[in-house]
């Protein structure tokens, strides 16, 4: 046991000497947490852009059109900016906004008189979401205008004509007639609209369980396992360093047990991983404000599963013919694992097929368990089974790794 501890202490000292490298490992979850929280807050993603409006009509009707984008959810998405048409065309031409809406002169009168008029929308081709929202909203507004013209077209025309020549306002009789007509129309339409005869009931069935805490919370657990993979990959190169320094040869000659040496390395890796876990969970709890219902279990799980991943990667690194080949082989293993295993994109964002494969990868499986510890959905029996499974894999990989290490040393 003393040799195991001495081996671990030596590795930890060596890691501690390269503080910038250590900080960069610890920095991955912090960086992802800070970045995602800063970019998307703690809620869901809302696209944001600028809508340029060249309102050449400057009427009440045209202002109703542009004001539609300043209310409610659309108001959160769009910053509406009034511009001259030429300026707007120049700006949308260089991608300065999501779209340019041109409301032609006479649009308001055309609406009231049911005459033809055309809105022009120039969209930014480098954006997909916001221009589509503007186009859809405008087309709904125009459809609404069409029905208004059908239902109260005559009344609108009357208003558009304005008061008789020489009069400052409409005659009382006209106002009274209009009121009576609108009242009768209201009575007639009440049967359809109060309450609405047709109602749409929408429900969304989540195909994948959602994560509380929004976009940042969806990314952070995967980022933690990305750090785990980087730490594991960074630490397996130590075997090559030990060989080039002659440590392994001396180890074999002195009769010390290779298993104890490997256990020391695994212990050092486990301690670094525990540090990453603590920093990551602190970020999750206080920065991203996501639920961390079983912090201790989560830290222990990340340490155990991370150490197992370290041993798995060690087998790959020890199988290589040179240090460079080890670097390439481990990269070749780590990156696809990272992609599929939910570290670059959460499983929720992946197509179902890829996500299913990803959950079967060692890190993907460990990540799924880790998330269950965070949100408290893991049951005692499944936690025990997961720990037992990870321990079993760790034992088997440890045995395989120490066998390989004995040959690697000489």
């Amino acid at each position: 046991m003393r040799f195991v501890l001495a081996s671990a202490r030596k590795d930890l000292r060596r890691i501690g000497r390269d503080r910038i490298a250590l900080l960069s490992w610890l920095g991955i979850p912090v960086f992802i947490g800070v970045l995602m929280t800063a970019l998307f807050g703690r809620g869901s993603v809302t696209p944001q852009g600028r809508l340029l409006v060249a309102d050449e009509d400057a009427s009440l009707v045209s202002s109703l059109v542009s004001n539609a984008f300043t209310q409610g959810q659309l108001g959160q998405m769009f910053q509406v900016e009034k511009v001259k048409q030429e300026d707007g065309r120049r700006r949308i031409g260089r991608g300065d906004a999501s779209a340019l809406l041109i409301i032609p002169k006479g649009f308001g009168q055309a609406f009231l008189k049911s005459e033809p008029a055309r809105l022009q929308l120039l969209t930014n081709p480098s954006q997909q979401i916001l221009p589509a929202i503007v186009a859809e909203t405008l087309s709904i507004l125009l459809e609404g205008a069409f029905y208004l013209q059908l239902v109260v077209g005559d009344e609108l025309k009357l208003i558009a004509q304005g008061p008789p020549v020489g009069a400052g306002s409409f005659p009382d009789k006209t106002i009274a007639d209009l009121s009576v007509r609108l009242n009768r129309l209201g009575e007639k339409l009440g049967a359809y609209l109060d309450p609405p005869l047709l109602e749409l009931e929408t429900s969304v069935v989540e195909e994948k369980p959602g994560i509380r805490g929004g976009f940042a919370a969806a990314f952070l657990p995967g980022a933690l396992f990305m750090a785990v993979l980087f730490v594991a990959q960074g630490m397996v190169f130590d075997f090559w360093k030990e060989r080039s320094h002659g440590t392994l040869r001396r180890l074999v000659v002195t009769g010390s047990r290779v298993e104890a040496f490997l256990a020391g390395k695994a212990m050092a890796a486990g301690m670094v991983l525990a540090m990453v876990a603590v920093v990551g969970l602190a970020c999750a709890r206080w920065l991203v404000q996501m639920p961390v219902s079983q912090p201790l279990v989560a830290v222990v799980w990340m340490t155990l599963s991370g150490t197992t991943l370290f041993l798995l990667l060690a087998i790959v690194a020890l199988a290589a013919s040179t240090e460079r080949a080890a670097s390439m082989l481990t990269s070749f293993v780590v990156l696809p694992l990272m992609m599929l295993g939910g570290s670059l994109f959460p499983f929720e964002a992946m197509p179902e097929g890829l996500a299913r494969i990803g959950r079967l990868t060692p890190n993907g499986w460990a990540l799924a368990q880790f998330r269950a510890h965070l949100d408290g959905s893991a049951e005692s029996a499944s936690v025990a089974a997961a720990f037992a499974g990870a321990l079993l894999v760790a034992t088997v990989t440890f045995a395989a790794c120490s066998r390989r290490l004995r040959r690697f040393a000489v």
Partner: protein
Amino acid sequence: MFRAREAWLWTFIMPVIFFYFIGTITGGFAPSTTARESIGVLTPPDAGFLGDHLVARLGRHYDVVRVTDAAELARHRRRLVIPAGFTAQVLAAKPVKIAFTRTGGGLGAEYDQIRLQRAVYSVLADLVATATEGGAPTAQDLAAIDRKPRALTLEVTAAGRRQRIPTGFEQAVPGTMVMFTLLVLFTSGAVTLAIERNQGILRRMASSAISRGSMVLGKWMGRLALGLVQIAFAMITGSLLFGVHWGPSLPAVLVVLTVYAALAAALGMLLGNFLATEKQVIGIGVLATNAMAALGGCWWPIEITPRWVQGMALLFPTGWAMDAMHKLVSFGLGPAAVAPHLAVMTAAALVAGWLVARWFRFQ
């Protein structure tokens, strides 16, 4: 650098895998506004003409698949149920609920909600419009409304010269290529400098007759060559495997990417010059690349980020490169549109190169 197999891995293999992976996933970030999606509609036999009318309205936005039983309906991602006796109930002025179920949430679900509401409430509006004429609405009345010309219309065109909006891989490949060029030059490009210094190679070179400037220039050119090979490979792969169209100004695209690679090479050398060990270079290089890629718009459509991030994108080389690519590829603009981008990236490359030459560490 090309003797190192990692450089081959990062230059030729990983980018292709990432193109596929990121293109597949980020393609789902935005709801499809161009491809028609399907919807399953359970239409009972007694739904009547209003049921047909609603299906016709849905057909303006979706490929409608009429089904007759729940099991068949369950196979669809979007499922709409028109209730039994639909027309009869509506004509009897009894409120009717139309149930829509969608598998999977997100922006796509919100977009469906808008389209569905539009279809349902325009049917209601048709009823209201026919009611003003008096009498119960008929299929002929609704058809007559449909035939009426719309006085107010909307004309939507894409700004710039290119009329086809790039989606899917055409969005993902340029972003991934810009990120990987930086990643390779910040890791492989920078780490070799640290290794050469730690192995004493740079010290031996310092004692030779080569000037400091020549040596820095030579090393920079080697890294630039690595970046250019990667860019050329990524563009060929992007065109052949992922159908990326690089816009009408291909030479300008090549110039932009060359200048970007020159800047990334110079920045990578700065990193390798000031950091001491390989682990430091790789750790900081990976973090810096990811930060610049995220904030510069390589990871996701920049429109999903807050306005302050969109404004910040031009603080990073990735932001300048992506903006220039959008102008040339998405807008189809000419070379003049990217003159500021070229000027800024060239100036930044010269400054970074001067800094490396001025404070080059031989040991």
